[in-house]
């Protein structure tokens, strides 16, 4: 098991490195392809005319006059090295560790922008995935045990509806009804969990529901199909032949086996989740990573875009390692092969 985890972690490090190379290349080369100097996206205003001394000084300061490989190396090492950043027209700042750059648009360190956004996004992601896993598994298990029953029929029509409704529809509808019409939650402004846990919960509950809704429906269908398949397996017959109570047969023998493909899908869905979070955070005005990335893209604020991309990629890789370990915990065959 330990060896398995170490192998997964080493793999994760490689993936993060590849992500850093790809991110660097895309965001460094894309401006060049469009004929714009990348400097423009760093200093957040029109740079001095090309060929001028100031322009060359700026390019040199950001390292764009060097070969690509050196540029990458410089960018990578600067993350771990405090240094000064300047936009060539008076404004300059020290970049603290981990130095993901400085946003001249927002006049802040990229790392502190991200640092503020992480708890919001993490709370949203964890809460929503718990909600959809519990809801999806519950509905799916009950449906899968009695396919064709009333519960199953209602459940499956319900999930089909939920899958078909996008977040940018459910989100505003939820806000409209719960906050404005029925006034169950009059104040949904965000508060940090450490400052005011109750207000945090109030601000998070609607985003969780909106985000979990579509996913839960998918997982209910997936669980139902897996459960139906698992319950016809030979080892379920063995469990029944032992004289085990039905609850043990279903939960200990059935659900555990039905869970493995769901966990695999969950790992993949975490990537989709990041996309959905951008929408959810925008709809509910939560200042998380998704919201930040939208702001950065609108403002053509390249250091922020790159920072958010790298952090999101790392988060995804870490989450997938956790999922892989979880998978091995559930299925012993994975550990040993």
């Amino acid at each position, binding site marked *: 098991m330990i060896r398995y985890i170490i192998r997964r972690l080493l793999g994760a490090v490689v993936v993060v490195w590849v992500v850093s190379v790809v991110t660097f290349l895309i965001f460094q080369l894309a401006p060049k392809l469009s004929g714009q100097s990348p400097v423009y996206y760093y200093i957040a205003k029109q740079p001095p005319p090309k060929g001028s001394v100031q322009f060359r000084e700026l390019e040199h300061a950001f390292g764009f006059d060097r070969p690509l490989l050196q540029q990458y190396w410089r960018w990578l090492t600067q993350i771990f090295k405090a240094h000064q950043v300047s936009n060539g027209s008076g404004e300059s700042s020290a970049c603290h560790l981990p130095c993901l750059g400085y946003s001249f648009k927002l006049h802040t360190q990229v790392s502190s922008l991200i640092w503020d956004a992480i708890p919001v996004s993490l709370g949203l992601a964890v809460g929503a995935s718990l909600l959809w896993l519990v809801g999806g598994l519950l509905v799916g298990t009950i449906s899968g045990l009695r396919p064709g029953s009333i519960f199953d029929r209602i459940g499956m029509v319900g999930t089909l509806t939920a899958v078909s409704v996008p977040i940018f529809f459910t989100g505003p509808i939820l806000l409209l009804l719960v906050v404005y019409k029925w006034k169950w939650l009059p104040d949904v402004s965000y508060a940090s969990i450490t400052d005011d846990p109750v207000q945090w919960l109030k601000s998070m509950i609607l985003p969780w529901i909106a985000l979990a809704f579509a996913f839960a429906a998918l997982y209910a269908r997936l669980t139902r199909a897996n459960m139906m398949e698992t319950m016809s397996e030979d080892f379920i017959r063995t469990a029944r*032949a032992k004289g085990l109570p039905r609850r043990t047969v279903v939960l200990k*023998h059935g659900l555990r086996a039905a869970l493995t493909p769901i966990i695999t899908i969950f790992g993949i869905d975490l990537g989709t989740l990041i996309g959905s979070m951008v929408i959810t955070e925008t709809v509910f005005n939560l200042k998380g990573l998704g919201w930040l990335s939208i702001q950065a893209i609108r403002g053509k604020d390249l250091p922020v875009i790159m920072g958010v991309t790298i952090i999101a990629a790392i988060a995804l890789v870490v989450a997938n390692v956790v999922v892989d370990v979880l998978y091995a915990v559930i299925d012993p065959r994975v550990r040993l092969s």
Partner: protein
Amino acid sequence: MSRESEATLETAPIEVYGERAPQSDAFLSVRDLRVHFPTDDGLVKAVDGISFDVHRGKILGIVGESGSGKSVTSQAILGLHKRTRAQVTGQIWFNGRDLVEVSEGDMRGLRGNDIAMIFQDPLSSLHPFYRVGAQISEAYRVHNSVSKAEARRVTVEMLDRVGIPNPSSRYDDYPHQFSGGMRQRAMIAMALVCRPTLLIADEPTTALDVTVQAQILELMKELAGEFNSAIILITHDLGVVAETCADVVVMYGGQCVEKGAVEDLFYRPEMPYAWGLLGSMPRMDRTRQARLTPIPGQPPSLIQVPKGCVFQPRCQFKDRVEGNRCVTEHPELLETAPGHAVRCHIDPAERRQIFTNEILPVL
């Protein structure tokens, strides 16, 4: 003096058996058992009126090809058919109770404890995610309120008993770490851990190679003798039947077509299907072409059961019966000798003649 005490020792187990034996001489009596599955295509008559008796300390063989209803019969005895999906009628008398009528809760108490089953494919029948030992302990702990440590002790003992080396360390292995033969031994240990009085083995050796087959069968026979259990052995391997069983039921198309003592079936078979089965046993002492004679045709559909005799579409001898009765009239299962019953329209005397003159020489 010493001779006398030896004699008493020998008879002692028989006395115990006498005390435990039920009033009726059969330990399990199946009467007119029918298992029908309603499907979209029609009613599947998987088992259609089968009756047999099993005695303690004896092995009853149920033979037949795939889809003849062997496994469905055994699962009906264990009450494993979902009551919503299967219509089970008839009687299954076990220890003075009709298993068709008992509640699901009572049946659960019997399953594993009094009636246990060994399944065909041990890899898919063991849960891949749980340790082998834990799966056996689980079977013991449902029916016996003991500590985990005690259940482990009993399990290790049982694993040792079925011939698994290093049982206390193999206890913690997963099924995929066991070889095929070891898995089947583990399945047997699981079935026997509660010392059931009735053991149903559903093709226990099909997935195993021949050398392991013999060991497993020997083990089952030995343990059945030791616990004085009744055994139903379901198989399509007549060699296995000849070696282990006392009585045989031949099933075809969900019906019993012939039953009797194992000698009846091997030396005096009367039903053309039983002849076919014997003929399709490979004979390694013959030339390649003559090694086995297959039965022509396909097993019948269980939805559209053939009119008349269920075997009639494949029977080569139906022209020996007057008036096309094989096709028009369903034959009854009739005793031709004590304990030997046959479902066939051909006259018993003629059947015996056909067997000695036409079948025996080519077997």
